[in-house]
């Protein structure tokens, strides 16, 4: 019996104890506590042992909960808004108005697609200039309506293409960062899968940045780092380690506010549970943020990013 199977058995046992305690009014508190400690430990061990490279693979799975299906499961209502009003629309970066547990908000998310055609059309979640100009526009809509922003990130990075450059994808990403910094309402970013470099950070300058347990967030892909720094694409697993791109490592670095646990085996193993975990975390953080007066919210956001990476005496 491997550790994952052992964990399953323990979890079933704990569930049974809980059922018994409820049904028959037995006091099984002590037994349950022991069991739960064991489960937590095993779980931690199991996941701590997942190599960063293994997590990169999990984060990239095409069946990972993400994109439009995720949004539709997450919100009671979603109305998609399209187009940047100058050049076009981008199927890889989508967004719209949503209602989440009664709250009105503007949602932005990467869509990688699940069918081959969808994946081709959305370039596997690599958004072009139109996508980021649209994102900026929707941030402006949200600002006008004083609505919170929720971003769901899952992209290998912005699309590197001739048209993207011609339409100023760099400027669009910069504009998104600026708009998020100024946004006059709470902002929450969740990295669901890959958080690839500039294409991710454009949607991640939020009050709270959450990551699913096996999501990654990185300045460059491990393959890219391997071929640039090691001159050898095959050392990508090693690069993945060096880059500190996992949720737990980034939490330790103070870059991420919360690591959202995934169902056993990874988020793809249980779509509904993943959605529910994200939903719970987002609502909790939105709730906390919405209790702050606007000037305090902005001051805290500003301070967070003003000091990022600088813990020295200059900070």
């Amino acid at each position, binding site marked *: 019996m491997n550790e994952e199977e052992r964990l399953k058995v323990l979890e079933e046992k704990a569930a049974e104890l809980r059922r018994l305690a409820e049904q028959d009014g037995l006091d099984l508190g002590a037994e349950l506590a022991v069991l739960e400690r064991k489960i937590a430990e095993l779980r931690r061990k199991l996941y701590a042992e997942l190599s960063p490279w293994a997590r990169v693979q999990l984060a990239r799975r095409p069946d990972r909960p993400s994109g439009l299906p995720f949004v539709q499961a997450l919100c009671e209502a979603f109305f998609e808004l399209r187009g940047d009003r100058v050049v076009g629309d981008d199927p890889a970066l989508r967004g719209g108005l949503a209602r989440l547990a009664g709250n009105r908000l503007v949602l932005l998310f990467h869509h990688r697609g699940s069918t081959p055609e969808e994946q081709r059309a959305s370039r596997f979640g690599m958004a072009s200039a139109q996508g980021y100009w649209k994102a900026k526009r929707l941030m402006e809509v949200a600002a006008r309506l004083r609505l919170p922003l929720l971003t769901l990130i899952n992209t290998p990075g912005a699309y590197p293409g001739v048209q993207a450059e011609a339409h100023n994808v760099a400027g669009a990403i910069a504009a998104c960062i600026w708009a998020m910094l100024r946004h006059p309402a709470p902002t929450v970013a969740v990295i669901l899968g890959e958080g690839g470099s500039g294409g991710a*950070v454009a949607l991640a300058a939020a009050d709270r940045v959450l990551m699913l347990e096996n999501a990654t967030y990185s300045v460059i892909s491990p393959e890219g780092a391997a071929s640039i720094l090691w001159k050898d694409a095959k050392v990508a697993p090693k*690069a993945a380690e060096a880059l500190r791109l996992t949720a737990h490592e980034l939490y330790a670095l103070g870059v991420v506010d919360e690591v959202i646990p995934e169902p056993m085996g990874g988020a793809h193993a249980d779509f509904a549970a993943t959605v529910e975990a994200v939903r719970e975390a987002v609502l909790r953080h939105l709730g906390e943020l919405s209790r702050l007066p606007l000037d305090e919210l902005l001051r805290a956001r500003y301070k967070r990013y003003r000091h990022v*990476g600088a813990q020295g005496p200059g900070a």
Partner: protein
Amino acid sequence: MPIRKDKRERYVEVEVSGPREPLWVRCEACGELIFKRKLQENQYVCPRCGAYFFLSARERIAALTDPETFREFPPPQIPEDPLGFADQVPYRERLARARQETGLGEALVAGEARLAGYPLTLAVLDFRFIGGSMGVAVGEALYLAQAHAARARTPFVFVVSSGGARVQEGVLALLQMVKVVAGRELLAQEGVPYIAVLTYPSTGGVLASLGSLADVTLAEEGALIGFAGPRVIEQTTGERLPPGFQTARFALEHGLVDQVVPRAQLREELARLLRVLAEEP
């Protein structure tokens, strides 16, 4: 007579009087051997073929400021190597090497100065220092320089020469993109002008943050301006790149920059710009 090709790629130094002070430089574009003083006088543009050599940050500052007006800001105190990063070379060793080769503490030199009498705050990236890449120290220095400009109400001038975020500092480097935009917001709140000068190369995370948010954006002739490098684009998409792709001219034609300026006129154009931007005429 050994010829050493340094990281500036197009800048070739011929070591004549010892490794410290090469007297002659060879132009890679046309092969000409140029007396270094002459090249310096010509702002590092080949007098024969017009090719642009890299300018170090200090050379750039000398070219753009009134003599003896530049007062450098102290470097921010930032813990080094936050990730304990090592590839084939440990990051700390890479930093030490860059420091030795460039005589700089980091890839950014910032300070206050005057240009044609106008006070300004100036921040210049040096491509020789790990590709002019932006890590925590560079981000912090850029933030502090903008904060200074906002306080002092002097126009902020940022000369970009960068390959992007510094890979060896991981997400902490990536998030400097947000930090430097937070600094940009300080300028906006005070109504202080920000001028970007894009040179060879202006790419990646530096372009996709502060580099693209100026009130006025000048491109030096010979600049390379783009989010993704040309090789990455070709490899990822298989697209044929149009002629002149990502040049300063391309950027101008696509509405991405305000003017393209030959290096010889950059100082004069900046002075012309400050004349309309400075609060006192």
